[in-house]
C-alpha cells in the first residue's frame, strides 16, 4: 500500500475513534493497532503488550496515585471552610479585597492537589457563597475562581506534569520545580488583575471588612497553617533532594491523613472514599497512558514523527514561530480533549520537532501546561467551565465570558515565559537531586 494512503487512513482512524466517543485510552490502543497493521509486519499483539507492560509498571508513574490520594484526603477535610476563614483576614486589606481569597486559595490548594477541578470545587464551595453574600460582583467571583483554579495544573504536584514527564522520560522532580515560579507569577498576575479592577471600578467594590489585630488573624488561620507546612515539606523535600517525587507524595499522603485525624474528619468512610477515588482517577489516567505507550511505539513505525520533524526543519521556522504555532494548535486541540490526553496524544510527534528546534524540554513542559490551562477555560470543552456550571447553574457562555480576562492574562503569561525562559529553568538547574 502506498505510504500517503496508509498515513491518511492512520490519521483518519485517530480522529474517528476519538471523535466518536470511544474511551480515550482504548481509542489510542485502537489507533496504534491500525498503525502497526498498516506499517509493519511485526506481530502486533506481542509488541503491544511489551510496550504496555513497561509503560504501566514504571517507577516514575508511582507518584501519580499517591498525589491523587493526598488531594482526595484533603478534599474531604474541612479545608475549604478553613481556607476561606484563614485567608480572609489577610486578604481584606489588599485592593480588591476578599476576591484575592480565590486566587491565593487556589494557589494553596493547587499545591496539595494535582487537579484543577478539585481545586475549583474545594475553593469555590466556600468562597462563592461568602463572596456573593458580601456583595462582590458575580462576574469577578466566577472569573477569578475559574481562572486561578487552573493553577492546579501547574503548581506541583501537577498530574499533567507527571504525565508529561513519564511520556518524554524527563525527571518529574525537575518538572515540578520548573512549575513553581511560573505558577506563582501567574497567581500574582491574577491578583494584579483583581487590584486593577478595584482601581477602575471602585463603585463595584463592597465595603471593607472590619479590621483585625495580628493575633486575631493568626487565630483565624490556625487551621490553615498546618496545610501550608505540609506543602512546604512536600515541595521542600523534592527541592533539597531529600526525597524523590514519589517519596514526597507518600509523605504527603501520610501528612494529609495526620491532618485529617487531628481535624476529626478522617473516618472509616472518608478513608475508603478517598482511597477509591484515587484508585479510579489513577486507573483512568493509567489506561490513557497504556494506550499512549503503544501509540508511541506505533508512531515510530509510521514515520510520522520524523516526517514532522523534517518538515519543520525544512520550513526553517524560528523557534518562536514554532512555539506560537504549537500554542494555537494546542488551544484548538484543547477544545476537544482534556489536558492529559492532549499531552500524551501529541508528544510522540511533537517531541522530535521540539528537540529539532533546540527547545528545552523542561521549559516546553511548563509552556504546554499553561496552554492546556487556557484550554480548560475555553468553550466548548473547558473542564473547569463545566465544573463551575455544575456548582452555580449558570450558563457555560456566561462563565466563559467571566473567564475571558483570565484567558488573556494567560496569553501574556506565555509571552513572559518566552521572554524569560529562566522563570521555568532556574529552580530545576539549582536543585539538588536524588537519582531516580
Amino acid at each position, binding site marked *: 500500500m502506498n505510504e500517503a494512503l496508509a498515513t491518511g487512513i492512520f490519521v483518519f482512524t485517530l480522529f474517528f475513534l476519538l*471523535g*466518536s*466517543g*470511544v*474511551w*480515550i*485510552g*482504548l481509542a489510542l*490502543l*485502537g489507533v496504534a*493497532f491500525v498503525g502497526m497493521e498498516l506499517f509493519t509486519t511485526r506481530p502486533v*499483539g*506481542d509488541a*503491544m*503488550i*511489551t510496550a*504496555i*507492560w513497561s509503560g*504501566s*509498571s*514504571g*517507577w516514575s*508513574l*508511582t507518584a501519580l*496515585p*499517591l498525589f*491523587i*490520594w493526598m*488531594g*482526595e484526603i484533603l478534599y*474531604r477535610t474541612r479545608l475549604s471552610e478553613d481556607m476561606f476563614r484563614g485567608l480572609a483576614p489577610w486578604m481584606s486589606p489588599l485592593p480588591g479585597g476578599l476576591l484575592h481569597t480565590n486566587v491565593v486559595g487556589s494557589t494553596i490548594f493547587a499545591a496539595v492537589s494535582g*487537579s484543577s477541578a*478539585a481545586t475549583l470545587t474545594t475553593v469555590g464551595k466556600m468562597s462563592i457563597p461568602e463572596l456573593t453574600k458580601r456583595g462582590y460582583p458575580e462576574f469577578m467571583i466566577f472569573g477569578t475562581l475559574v481562572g486561578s483554579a487552573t493553577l492546579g495544573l501547574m503548581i506541583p504536584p501537577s498530574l499533567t506534569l507527571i504525565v508529561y514527564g513519564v511520556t518524554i522520560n524527563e525527571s518529574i522532580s525537575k518538572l515540578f520545580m520548573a512549575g513553581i515560579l511560573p505558577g506563582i507569577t501567574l497567581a500574582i498576575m491574577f491578583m494584579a488583575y483583581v487590584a486593577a479592577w478595584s482601581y477602575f471600578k471602585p463603585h463595584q467594590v463592597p465595603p471593607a471588612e472590619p479590621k483585625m489585630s495580628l493575633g486575631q488573624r493568626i487565630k483565624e488561620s490556625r487551621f490553615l497553617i498546618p496545610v501550608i507546612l505540609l506543602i512546604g515539606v512536600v515541595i521542600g523535600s523534592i527541592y533539597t533532594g531529600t526525597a524523590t517525587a*514519589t*517519596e514526597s*507524595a*507518600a509523605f504527603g*499522603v*501520610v501528612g494529609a491523613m495526620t491532618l485529617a485525624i487531628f481535624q476529626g474528619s478522617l473516618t472509616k468512610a472518608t478513608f*475508603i*472514599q478517598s482511597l*477509591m477515588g*484515587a*484508585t*479510579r*482517577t*489513577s*486507573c*483512568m489516567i*493509567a*489506561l*490513557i497512558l497504556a494506550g499512549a505507550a503503544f501509540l508511541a511505539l506505533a508512531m515510530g513505525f509510521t514515520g510520522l514523527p520524523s516526517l514532522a520533524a523534517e518538515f519543520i526543519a525544512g520550513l526553517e521556522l524560528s523557534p518562536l514561530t514554532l512555539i506560537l504555532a504549537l500554542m494555537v494548535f494546542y488551544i484548538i486541540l484543547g477544545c*476537544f*480533549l*482534556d489536558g492529559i*490526553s492532549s499531552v500524551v496524544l501529541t508528544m510522540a510527534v511533537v517531541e522530535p520537532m521540539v528537540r529539532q528546534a533546540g527547545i528545552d524540554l523542561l521549559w516546553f513542559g511548563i509552556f504546554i501546561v499553561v496552554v492546556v490551562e487556557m484550554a480548560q477555560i475555553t468553550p*466548548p*470543552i473547558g*473542564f473547569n467551565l463545566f465544573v463551575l456550571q455544575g456548582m452555580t447553574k449558570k450558563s457555560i457562555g456566561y462563565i466563559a465570558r467571566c473567564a475571558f480576562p483570565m484567558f488573556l492574562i494567560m496569553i501574556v503569561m506565555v509571552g513572559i515565559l518566552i521572554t524569560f525562559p529562566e522563570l521555568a529553568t532556574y529552580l530545576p538547574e539549582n536543585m539538588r537531586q536524588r537519582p*531516580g
Partner: protein
Amino acid sequence: MNTQTQTTLEEAKHPIRLNGPARMLRTLLNGLYKGCGAIAALFLLVLLFIIIGQMVARWLGVQFPGSANYAGYCMAAASFFALAYTLNNNAHIRVTLFLSKMSGAARHLGDLWCLGIACFLSSYLAFYACKNVYISHMIHDISQGQDAMPLWIPQVPVAIGSVVFAIALLDHFIRTLLFKDDTFAEDHHVEGEEF
C-alpha cells in the same frame, strides 16, 4: 438487589426484572467488578507502604533492594484491577462532544459502536496479556532490576484485570443491545470525581 426477586442493573433508572440464573449472573458480575476495585485499592495501599518502607530503610541505612520495582508492579496491578470498576463508575474519560448531541436511535447506535469497538480492543488486550504471562513463565523471564522477580508473577494481575475489563465491556454491550444502560449517561457522575 433491593428485593428478593427483583434486581436493578446497577443504579439504572428503570429496574429490569431478572429471575433465576440471570439474576445470579448479575450479582456475580457486579461482585466481580467491585471485588477487583477493592483489590486495586489494596495494591495502592501496599504501594504506599513500600514507598514508606523504602524511605525508612534509607534513613536507617538499611538496604531495601528492588523497592522501586515492587512499587511499579503494584502500580500496574492497581491500574489494571481497577479498569472494570472505573468503567462502571463512568470515570474513564471520552470525547462526548458529538455523542451527547445525538438522541434516540442514533444515540443507541453510537453507544453500540463505542462499546463494540471497546469490546474488541479490550479482548485483544486481554488475550495478549494472558499470552504474555504464559510466555514469561515459559522462557523464565526475570526482572532486570535488583528484585530479580520472575516477571510472570506481577504480570498475572495485569492479565486478570484486562480479562475482567473485557468481560465488563461485553456486559455493557449486551445490556445496551437488549435493554437500556444508564451507566454512561452524562449526569451519572461520582461525587468528588477529579475530571
